[in-house]
């Protein structure tokens, strides 16, 4: 018969509880920074269009902390001037080539966000 004895689990639970309670505000801060980076890149990519000079200013970012998740929404706001052109510019049309701003900005941020979140997780669990 094999007997396994686990000790220190109460301390581990306390440490994980503590990490969990600090996670939401800290993850929100990381996601906010990531969203700002994506927005900045996106605005830069769309700045200076002669045919849509206000489009870059229509790019906004919002971060929502929901139960169990943090969500960032970044993109052209259709309620803002020329914001409705966003889809047409990002993906192009049958007559016009795309001028992607969102996709490359997101792709550039992805590894940075991944690193920041994994460093944060290490810090939270490590105490």
């Amino acid at each position: 018969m094999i007997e396994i004895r686990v000790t220190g689990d109460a301390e581990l639970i306390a440490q994980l509880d503590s990490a969990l309670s600090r996670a939401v505000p800290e993850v929100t801060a990381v996601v906010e920074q990531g969203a700002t980076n994506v927005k900045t890149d996106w605005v830069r990519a769309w700045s200076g269009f002669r045919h849509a000079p206000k489009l870059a200013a229509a790019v906004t970012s919002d971060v929502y902390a929901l139960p169990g998740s943090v969500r960032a929404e970044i993109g052209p706001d259709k309620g803002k001037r020329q914001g409705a052109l966003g889809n047409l510019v990002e993906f192009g049309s049958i007559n016009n080539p795309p001028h992607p701003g969102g996709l490359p900005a997101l792709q550039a941020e992805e590894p940075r966000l991944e690193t920041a979140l994994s460093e944060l997780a290490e810090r939270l669990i490590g105490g």
Partner: protein
Amino acid sequence: MADLIDRQLLDAGLTLLRADPALVVYPDVEGQVPATPEPPYVRVYGAVGRPPGPGNALDGLSRQLTARWWCHCVGTTEPAALAVAMRVRVALLDARINGGMVRQEVGDQPPVRDETTGVPVYDVVAVYRLISY
């Protein structure tokens, strides 16, 4: 003038599409796009980038190439445009090019009515991406 490797990557995607005899692909093999093409067809825009990424990490050189194909799948009706989008997906999705696999980056979007050519058509946009080293 684009790098030869860029041209080859983009052409590889177009060749996969052109392998479907039921699919009319623009630009055609000569790189031409008619002024008023007759649907159904797929109008493809391609670009290759060298973004920072994990593939560049070891020696700092920009070895990672990202090729994208923006596919405008056009039909005279919504179902016709969606049918073109399905053929495009079958041709490109998970295809292997230069050691990488083509992925769908932005899924088929709902058909959008487009009247810019004078004839109303429906356009379904899908974006495919290949990361190659």
